[in-house]
C-alpha cells in the first residue's frame, strides 16, 4: 500500500531543512521493540478536560463557534483502540494561541485556554467540545497562513501506537497554500480533514465534525 506519510525533508516547510534526519531510519526487529506504553485511567482526567468551552471559564463563555469533534481511534484493521490518551491543543476563534511565544496580533479570550485531554472508550470512540479555531499567520514565507486546525497527540498502548497530527476542517481555502498540509502525499491529505456530520450535530447547540484516526500497525492480541 502506498505510504500516507509526509517525507522528513519538505523544503517548502522551511524548518524541516535543518531539523530533519538525513540518514535513513534504522529498522528495529519486532522482538526488540515489543514494548508497551503506560496505561492512563479516569483518575488522570478532570471533569471538563473534554470540554474546552468549559475548562478555562473565568467570567463567561468563550467567544466563537461551539463545535463537537468525535471519531474512532483504530488500528489498521479498523479495530477500535480503547483507553488511549488523546491530548489536544488549538488556537482560539480569533486564531490566537495562548502560548507565550505567539505574537500574532489577535485577541486572547479570557475564557478559553485551548487545551484538553481524554481517553477513548472501550470501543475506541472519543468526543470533545471546543470552539472552532481561527486561521493564523506564520513566518514560513510571505503571507503564510495556517488553515484552521486542532493539534492531536495520541498515545495508545504500544510504542508504535503514537501519533502527532493535526485535524483540519472541510473545504478550507488555505489548504493549497499550506506547506504543512501539502507535505502529505496528495492521495492521503483527506485523511487529515474532518467530515461535517449533520446526524451528530447537537440541535441548537453545536455543529459536529467526525475525525477518525488510524494508527500504525495492528493491535496486539492482549488488547483485543
Amino acid at each position: 500500500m502506498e505510504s500516507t506519510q509526509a517525507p522528513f525533508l519538505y523544503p517548502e516547510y522551511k524548518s524541516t531543512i535543518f531539523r530533519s534526519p538525513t540518514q535513513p531510519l534504522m529498522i528495529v526487529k519486532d522482538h526488540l521493540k515489543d514494548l508497551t506504553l503506560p496505561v492512563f485511567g479516569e483518575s488522570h482526567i478532570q471533569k471538563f478536560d473534554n470540554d474546552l468551552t468549559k475548562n478555562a471559564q473565568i467570567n463567561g463563555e468563550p467567544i466563537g463557534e461551539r463545535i463537537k469533534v468525535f471519531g474512532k481511534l483504530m488500528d489498521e484493521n479498523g479495530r477500535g483502540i480503547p483507553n488511549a490518551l488523546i491530548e489536544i491543543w488549538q488556537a482560539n476563534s480569533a486564531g490566537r494561541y495562548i502560548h507565550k511565544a505567539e505574537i500574532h496580533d489577535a485577541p486572547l479570550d479570557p475564557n478559553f485556554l485551548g487545551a484538553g485531554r481524554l481517553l477513548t472508550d472501550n470501543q475506541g470512540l472519543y468526543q470533545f467540545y471546543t470552539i472552532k479555531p481561527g486561521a493564523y499567520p506564520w513566518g514560513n514565507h510571505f503571507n503564510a497562513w495556517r488553515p484552521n486546525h486542532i493539534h492531536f497527540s495520541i498515545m495508545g498502548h504500544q510504542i508504535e501506537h503514537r501519533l502527532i497530527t493535526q485535524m483540519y476542517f472541510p473545504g478550507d481555502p488555505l489548504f493549497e497554500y499550506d506547506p504543512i498540509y501539502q507535505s502529505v502525499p496528495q492521495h492521503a491529505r483527506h485523511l487529515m480533514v474532518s467530515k461535517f456530520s449533520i446526524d451528530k450535530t447537537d440541535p441548537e447547540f453545536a455543529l459536529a465534525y467526525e475525525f477518525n484516526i488510524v494508527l500504525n500497525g495492528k493491535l496486539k492480541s492482549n488488547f483485543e
Partner: protein
Amino acid sequence: METFNQTPSQTVGPFFAYSLTAKQYGYNYNSIITDSLVNDSIEGERIFITGKIFDGENKVIPDAIIELVQYFESENQDVTSKIARVGTGTSEDGSFIFTTVKPKPIKGQAPFISVVIMMRGSLHHLHTRIYFADETEKNKEDLLLNSIPEDRRNSLIANRLQKNNQIFYEFNIRMQGENETIFFKI
C-alpha cells in the same frame, strides 16, 4: 480483512506547551506527565538525564519536546512502563533534564530508556534510545546496539557525569551532521 489507511503525521508545531507540558511552562492547566520517571514507591538512587538537541547548523533547539519511556520489571517478570515529558523551552541554555533511577536490563537487553522527540520543523515524531556508558559489558552484548554501524553507536550512549554528589547522564541529540543521532523506524 479490510485495511485502513494510516492517518498522516503532522508536526507538533511551536505552541504545544500549554497542553503537553503546561506545568513546566507555567500555564494554568495540570500535567499528567511530568519530568520524572519515578515516584516514591520506586527505590534506588536518583539520576538525572540531561542534554540538548542540535539542529543541522549546530544550534540548540529551544522548542522541542522529549518523552522518555522506561521499563520496570517486577519480581514475577511483569514489565510495566512509565513516561516522562519535558520541553526544551524553559532552561536558559535549551537543555532538558529528567529525574529517574538507572534502568535495569529487561528481556536480555542492555539497560536503556526509550526516547521520542517532537518539534516544529519535524513532520514526524522520532524514536531513539538512551544506553549508558558505564554498562560496557552489557552494551557489548546488546543485539540492537550491535546492529548499528560501530561509528554511529556512540550517538545512543549517555556519558556519566558527577556534579555536587549527583549523578547525571548526558545525552545530546543531533538532528543532522557528522554525529547524527540514530533514529529508529518503529
